[in-house]
């Protein structure tokens, strides 16, 4: 870890001004990801702008009958908020499937989608990594890649995005509100994260000088039929090998609308509108779920150690949809 200077902002404008004067500075919110990366010299900011005290710490209903999650509300307060629990249980489940109670008490809604990959090589500065050091190469491609991506990869990077929360937000069609020097804008959640392409060092479409102010949830929360299934190497406190956020709108046994987002398989939460469309008007049953799993995984490619994820993801999709349709008990 290097020495750094520190500034605490109390207003969004002050944070943006500070950032304008020190473009290499980093915002710090809960610090649960940034400080870890600083300790292993993956991030070496010389200036930190603490945004924890920004007045973005509320959960409020929006005019469109949705919910606005302040960027600085903690993951814990979000997951246990009565309106989130009752109207967006999928989000609550996804958040609670992540990290540990202590971390969720620190982690913020703005910081969570911005956490960086858990690729081993990204963390080990003794190895090459295009995400950490553009152009140095990707050690995972021909290395140990058990936790890596099977969809949307590039020859430059096969990392996955580790967030659970982001998978649910993608399925729910959330929107990210950001403010920057150019003013405010809204980024639909499915477009927030990027595929690696030849710039794996850039995780999201947020510009470095922008601040996330809130995440908006639309009216529809699929509170009746949803499931977040996270498969991992131990029962709790581990990142997903594969995760599935599934939400259904059912009429009897017939699917009116379906949302499926996958975590642990790509550089961003993975969604495919044509797969979801395929379920509309169909019966909720294992056969139809298996078919949609095939569509979602079309083109999936393993890199050796992670080949199993293709089959595991398909099975997880079926199981998550069965759970969402209340056709399978939850373990």
């Amino acid at each position, binding site marked *: *870890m290097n020495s750094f200077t520190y500034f605490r902002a109390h207003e969004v404008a002050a944070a943006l001004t500070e950032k304008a004067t020190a473009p290499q500075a980093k915002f710090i919110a809960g610090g649960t990801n940034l400080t870890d990366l600083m300790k292993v010299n993956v991030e070496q900011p010389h200036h930190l702008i603490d945004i924890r005290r920004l007045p973005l710490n509320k959960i409020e209903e929006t005019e469109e009958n949705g919910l606005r999650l302040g960027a600085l509300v903690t993951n814990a307060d979000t997951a246990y908020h009565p309106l989130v629990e009752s109207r967006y249980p999928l989000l609550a489940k996804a958040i609670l499937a992540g990290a540990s109670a202590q971390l969720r008490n620190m982690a913020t809604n703005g910081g969570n989608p911005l956490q960086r990959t858990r690729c081993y090589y990204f963390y080990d500065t003794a190895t090459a990594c295009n995400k950490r050091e553009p152009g140095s190469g990707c050690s995972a491609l021909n290395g140990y890649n058990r936790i890596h991506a099977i969809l949307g990869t590039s020859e430059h990077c096969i990392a996955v995005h580790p967030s659970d929360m982001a998978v649910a937000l993608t399925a729910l069609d959330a929107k990210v509100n950001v403010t920057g020097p150019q003013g405010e804008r809204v980024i639909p959640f499915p477009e927030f994260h990027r595929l690696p392409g030849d710039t794996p060092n850039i995780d999201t479409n947020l510009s470095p000088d922008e601040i996330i102010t809130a995440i908006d949830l639309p009216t529809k929360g699929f509170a009746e039929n949803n499931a977040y299934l996270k498969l991992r190497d131990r029962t709790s406190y581990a990142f997903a090998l594969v995760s599935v956020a599934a939400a259904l709108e059912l009429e009897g046994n017939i699917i009116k609308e379906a949302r499926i987002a996958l975590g642990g398989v790509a550089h961003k939460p993975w969604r495919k509108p044509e797969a979801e469309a395929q379920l509309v008007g169909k019966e909720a049953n294992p056969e139809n779920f298996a078919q949609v799993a095939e569509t979602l995984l079309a083109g999936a490619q393993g890199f050796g150690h992670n080949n199993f994820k293709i089959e595991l993801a398909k099975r997880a999709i079926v199981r998550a949809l069965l759970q969402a349709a209340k056709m399978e008990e939850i373990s």
Partner: protein
Amino acid sequence: MEKAFFDQDNINDSLDRVDGRLKVTGKATYAAEYQLPNIAHAVLVTSTIAKGLITALDSKQAERAPGILAVISHVNSPGVPAYGSSPAMPERATLGTPLRVFHDNLVYFSGQPVAVVVADTLQRAKYAASLVKVQYEKEPHQTDLEANISRAALPANVQRDKNSRYHDYDRGNPEALNTAAVKIEATYKIPTEHHNPLEPHALIAHWEAPDKLTLYDKTQVIKGTQGNLARAFKLPIENVKVQAKFIGGAFGSGIRVWPHVMAATLAAKKVQRPVKLALPRELMFNSVGSRPETIQKLSIGATKDGRLTAITHEAIAHTSTYEEHTERTVLATRVLYACPNVRTRYRLVNLDVNTPTWMRGPGEVTGVYALESAIDELAYALRIDPLELRLRNHADSDPEKNLPWSSKSLKECYAKGAEHFGWHKRTLEPRSMRQGQFLVGYGMASSMFGVHRNNAKARAVLQADGKVIVQSATSDIGPGTGTAMTQIAADTLNISPALIRFDLGESTLPDAPGQTGSTTVSSVGSAVKVACEALKQKLLQLAVTSPHSTLYNANPADLSVADGRIFKTQNPAVSITYTEILKQNNLPQLEVTEESKPGAEWQKYSMSAFGAHFVEVHVNPITGEVRVKRVVTCAGVGKVINLKTARSQSIGGIVGGIGMALTEESVMDHRFGRYVTADFANYHVPVHADVPQIDAFFIDEHDPHVNPVGAKGLGEIAIVGVSAAIANAVFHATGKRIRNLPITPDKLI
């Protein structure tokens, strides 16, 4: 806890931990927490290549960083006298040479300390460490056990020692395997595992004078560390002091002096200040050993009615290029079952990694995993209940040494365990039990761990106020040593445990062996017992010989002792207390030091602890997730000194076994010879959600032969066999035999 299985006469059998309050209130001082004036902080720079030479080490930038006191490496090390002078042309160390820290420019493994940066604060040291630039000339390295299996060889240290137990072993005619009516053959693999105690290794090295060294170190072997450093720095032994009063777990990682200890000691010498060095978690994977990766081939032959006719067991494990770590991997196979024809082979492969070491249940854990899995496979081949198969082949005496067991309650363990578990509910076929959507599996395995005992000394001092201080240079890595010793002393002296203070964790105390191999109660406990017994005899002697004593001239045979009072058995009113004896004799205190050693009994008996584990797992048939639902374990470990801490030991061992079976694996990227899973996000120790209800039972076993205390030791056996029981349950649930641990979901789908 059910008392029914534990009716020992020991009144203190669940004494609370004597240091529990200190620990939970944060008052226990661990190695890195000693507040010494003027302390400096050290951070290691470690090699990024697995084999080769350091061609340049540029520390200029680091030395200019704020707060930096020194950057020490082979270029400017104050030197370790025992290493000799640094060679002009460095040569690779011969096998058996512990890593010579900062001695030359040779790299033996990735993660080897190549420099240490010392600064006035930890943060400054860390930052400067990132500025040290090291250039290497790489040589091709070998870190892959399977790829190097053709180099597997009988360890050189075994070849030199004709009494070694690791020589090739043949009993009867192992070729009988070829003609067995039923035969199974399988290869089992365990990955490298790391101990990962919660408290990372740390020490403070303090040269109090140019020839006087004090270490506050996380070590399981206080006297061993003292001797090692005295030899290394050519100091009189009494000039080296080692302190380790509290240890936050170790599981074997603290059994020897590791390179980081030498690095901190050299740093303290250079900067002439006390130096603290605490390993960050990621360095715990390169610095303090590991359980060796091991490949084992098991073949078992049996008659149709399930009598074993032959077993062969071949184990190949990794070691480093500079040291051979050998462990008892194949030894249990020679004795666990009554089988006339047995062959074992033990081989090592040297790799460019750091030296592995003992990790909880060393050797036995690995070997019994393979053996007990193979026995399970045989049970299915024979269509005999796995427990019944084990009973049919019970070894009534030690089939290797042809000696009687000093005591053995394995059959009782099977019976109690099976009863509490409800083993009879198990159906024979794999995939035959379900609960809702889950596949249910029942599995079991035997466990064993040999009894070991070393020489140990203890001092017991009765003070005027009636308190007794008992001392021995042992350590407590968590089992509750201080508590057990307090109970042994209290029982022997017939006084309340509240009057005992047990001191450990300091090299100035009477000699004790390291806390290894489940030997502490048997060795140190015996020393405490004989010391306290001697103290009591001295008091009895004084009671009948001092003229003012109420018991003057009484016959010691007519006397009894209770509550610190000696009295006439027939007339308890005639009595004298311990403190009155001191007073009458004008003694400020009464002190004895005694040594206890193993003796001739070891020629007459074979000594071992035995036990059995029963496990229920649920497996999700779609996603392959395994959940251990409950565990029942039962062990015969001689006398149980403290039921509560014993139960904790058993539970801890089971948790370790769950990790071994389902989650723990250190993966190396052989292109770099580096561990890629070197943090807690990727090295998965079990969390609470992985740990189910665990019921631990003990058989009330009276063994007069093992040692004066009658205790066999429990720390190691608690984990031995657990991974086999789980793997066997997974097979019963799924019909899939996973022979390479850990059993992660990808292996089951």
